[in-house]
């Protein structure tokens, strides 16, 4: 953790939720700013700029998507959105609109803290610096573009390898189908969401111990995937 603790801005209209976030986040050592409306949140985000924003999608005065759009006009600050369970479409929209991650209400604080840590880590390190990544039985040699499982080389097609790289690069972060399609297949093929599903299934078959119960290539139901090297 850097010398000055990260500043987190909470934009949330429900006081009880703000209260318990304040309690647990300050306990973790984060500094906090709070706003109860979207307009206030945008104002507070100007001075001093936060290191991370926790944004409730259901604010009374503004659409959460609009807040994300406005923040993204001038800032790359990581945004974690809070949303209800049945709002998959909104989650995807928020993620594709520039949010970095989401947590579904009601949530356990541990889950949120993990997301915060991941988001803060990514904002610090933009690119993969190491040349070898290992998770479970798998070892990926980025320099040689070779993948090993239990020491034996695993053959991946070029697109499979590209997908794997994209997911490795965003370790711990949720990635929407659309994002993966754009990153791997290019900007033209953004409607064929099932490409991603098929290729993720392939990766699981080749790299997971039990493809039906994946430990690394996790599914975020209705939203996309999350690669987690922690297992």
């Amino acid at each position, binding site marked *: 953790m850097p010398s000055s603790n990260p500043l987190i801005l909470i934009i949330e209209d429900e006081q009880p939720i703000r209260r318990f976030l304040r309690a647990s986040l300050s306990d973790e050592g984060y500094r906090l700013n709070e706003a109860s409306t979207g307009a206030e949140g945008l104002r507070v985000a100007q001075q001093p700029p936060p290191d991370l924003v926790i944004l409730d999608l259901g604010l009374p005065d503004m659409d959460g998507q609009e807040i994300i759009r406005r923040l993204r006009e001038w800032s790359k600050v990581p945004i974690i959105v809070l949303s209800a369970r049945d709002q998959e479409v909104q989650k995807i929209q928020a993620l594709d609109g520039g949010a970095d991650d989401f947590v579904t209400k009601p949530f356990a604080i541990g889950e949120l803290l993990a997301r915060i840590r991941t988001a803060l880590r990514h904002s610090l390190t933009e690119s993969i610096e190491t040349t070898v990544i290992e998770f479970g039985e798998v070892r990926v040699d980025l320099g040689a573009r070779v993948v090993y499982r239990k020491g034996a080389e695993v053959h991946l097609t070029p697109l499979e390898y590209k997908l794997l790289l994209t997911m490795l690069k965003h370790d711990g972060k949720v990635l929407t189908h659309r994002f993966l399609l754009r990153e791997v297949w290019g900007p033209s093929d953004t409607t*064929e969401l*099932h490409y991603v599903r098929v290729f993720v299934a392939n990766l699981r*078959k080749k790299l997971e111990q039990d493809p*039906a119960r*994946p430990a690394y290539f996790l*599914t975020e*139901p209705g939203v996309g995937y999350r690669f987690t090297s922690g297992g």
Partner: protein
Amino acid sequence: MNEHRPDPDMLLKAVQTKENRARRGSLKIFFGYAAGVGKTFSMLENAHRALASGRDVVVGYVEPHARPETQALLDGLESLPTKVLDYRGVKLREFDIDAAIVRHPDLILVDELAHTNAEGSRHIKRWQDVEELLEVGIHVWTTLNVQHIESLNDIVGQITGIVVRETVPDQVFEMADDLELIDLSPDELLDRLNEGKIYLAEQAQRAILCFFQKSNLSALREMSLRRAANRIHSDVESARKIRSDARPWATTDRLLVCVGPSPSTARVIRTAKRMATALDAQWLAVSVDTPSAQSQTQTQLRIAQHFRLAERLGAETVNLSGDDVVGSILEYARSRNVTKIFVGKTSEARWKRLLKRTVVDQLLESSGGIDIYVIHGERNDDKSIDVAQSRIERFNWFGYANAFGIAIASSLIAAALRKLIGSNSEANAGMIYLAGVAFVAFRFGSGPAIVACLFAVLAFDFFFVPPYMTFAVADTQYIVTFGVMVAIGLLISTLASRLKDQVTNTRKRERRTSTLYELGRQLSSISGKVFLASAASEKISELINGEVAVYLVDQSGKTEIAQGQDGEIAKNLVSLPAAQWVIDHSQLAGAGTNTLPNACAVFIPLVGANSCVGAIAIRSKDDNSKLLEPEQRQLLEACASQLALALERDQLAIDAAESRIQAEAEQVRSTLLSSVSHDLKTPLAAIAGACSTLLATSTLDESTRRQLLETVSNEATRLNRLLENILQMSRLDAGAIAPNMQWHVLEELVGSALHRTSSELVGHHVTTRIPADLPLLYLDGLLIEQLLINLLENAAKYTPSGTSVHISANMDSGFLRLVVCDNGPGVSEGMEEKIFDKFYRATRSPDDGRGSGLGLAICRAIANVHQGTITASPSHAGSVNHSGTNRGLEFLIRIPIAKKAPNVPSG
């Protein structure tokens, strides 16, 4: 005292009339005897006064006679723009009734009440426009000349020698709330005319010659004054009746007009009307349908026209039926206490009158106490043409030729008989001739029968009466034979032709009855508006050999075509507004009627028991006017009313079904509420209790504190799950979830479900077998995942730790077969279906029985959303793996995968 009490009926009538008027606009007529007396001028002057007193006055239409004084008066008054109609290249300006209704002023001025509208207007006559304005509550001022009053029409014709075509029914005139007589002496009028103040110069000359003669004008003036005086008199009378100052004479007079096809009947009707007005008496117009008259369309049409005239003039019209015209009329007249009968003078030739007594003669003879007024009918040229035409039409050459042929044939048969038998048997010959006559009579009617009879007598005389082969008669007794033969022949022919007419009529009536019966039967077996409309229109179009369209009022009150969208009727632009008008007014309109005559079809309202539900448009292939013949019209109206009742019945059935569904939904909702409220309150009570303990007691040891906090956390989780289930169930129930269908990899859905239930299934042994070649599946991934989660949670909750759970899938002829089975205790026999019910909970839950009771119901709803099924049965795994008590439970989900999986480019 009692004698001066007002008659309650009279009061009621007065009140009702007043009420009607209160809703209706009032009508004021500026009444004069000729053009130029100053009606329009006076009306406009009054309008300025009304405007000054703050009334909302609008000029609807004023004839542009270009009289400068009149034009000047138009300044300062708001005028509605006129509607311009293009009639054969001539631009005609007409009063715009729609604009008037939209503008809805307090008072509108509409000149020339008797005007006939240009083709393409809504109504034929302007007085109908005015009626509609009054109906919507707009007050109207208008102008009228005396010669335009319907009942005075023929008198004016007699006096001036000019037949006025534009007439206004007396009723409109009588219903006027206010009458202002505009009078000017004929000399002054003529002066004004000569000064050119009335018509334009060249028109003036012609007008003077034809109409503006002093004698004419005086007579017309007298008529107008008298009419106005009558009107005032009747106002006073009715006022007196209400106040009951003096008991008026009981008016016992009731008039009856005999209506026949003769054109002179119109005159009789008008005369009767005048008399009825003068006597302040009720009057009836009556016609008798004889079997022979019914079969003649010309006759029927004429009678219908006369009836319409009588109705316009305020008569009650009655159609009697019977063989005996005079008898029927007199019987009816007595039953209605008629005091005077009006009948037209028949102009039959004298010899005919000798043969057959006319209706007039018979009436005079048997009328008893009823006065008979015989009215001279005017000679009318077109009458003779009509009669001649119908004669030609009806002259039955074939019948007459046959009559001749059969007379010859009879002679031959009689001759052959004589040869065979040998003896001279003129009696037999006579019988054979009569048989021939009877045959002709039955086959060809009375005319040919009479001819056959004459031929028969002549042939009989010639061949069989000595001296043979001459017409001479030796024995005078044969004269008697001839006489009897002629008499019998005529009798047979009369009877036969009457029988024939009756048969024709009976057939017609039978056809009608059977049509109605069939329609009724068909309609009663169908439900659904569109089907009813199509069945009825099919039947009716068959009946009239034409096209039918049905317009119905939908729930929002909009009129839309429900049947015949592709037909000629639907293409016609006038049709929809016409249907709308018919529905609004519950009146027949369209081609051949007085309203919207330029429509391409006849529009009949569908009047049900409660309201007008629509209109049916009928267009005959050859002649629309045939549709309006009384008989046909009655039949069509009967069909329409059957359809209307069927449509209403249908609507009622729908309403009933809707309210039943609503009641059922209400029932489900209340069950849900009572169930849910218990389930919600239990965890809430636990949370609230734990929290209050934590807050209130400071001396708790660390482990108790932790326990309480765990309770709060667990109960909150449970509450959350319950709420999610309830929300999802109600969304699925309400059909609010349109499945978000995408191509999915089943393995991923199973994996995700297992991931999310991993904590609950810690003690269970879960295996999966999903074939590697399972294609992409077109599903709502989230819903299927939810289904799997619910099943897995169910297994976790209801089977003991250590139980194995197996998930497998395969494709089976277009269906995805997804199986989730366990080797747990299973459910008791017969409960396999019951467990999918909402709020059903297995009694043997190892937990404390606090599942939501919705998990499996949601599974079923999700399967249904995918057009699939989910069933439960004892699993095979259970019976194999465990000792007898464990039946195991297997869920089988079958979901159709109709689409072929898309290609995924490898690479």
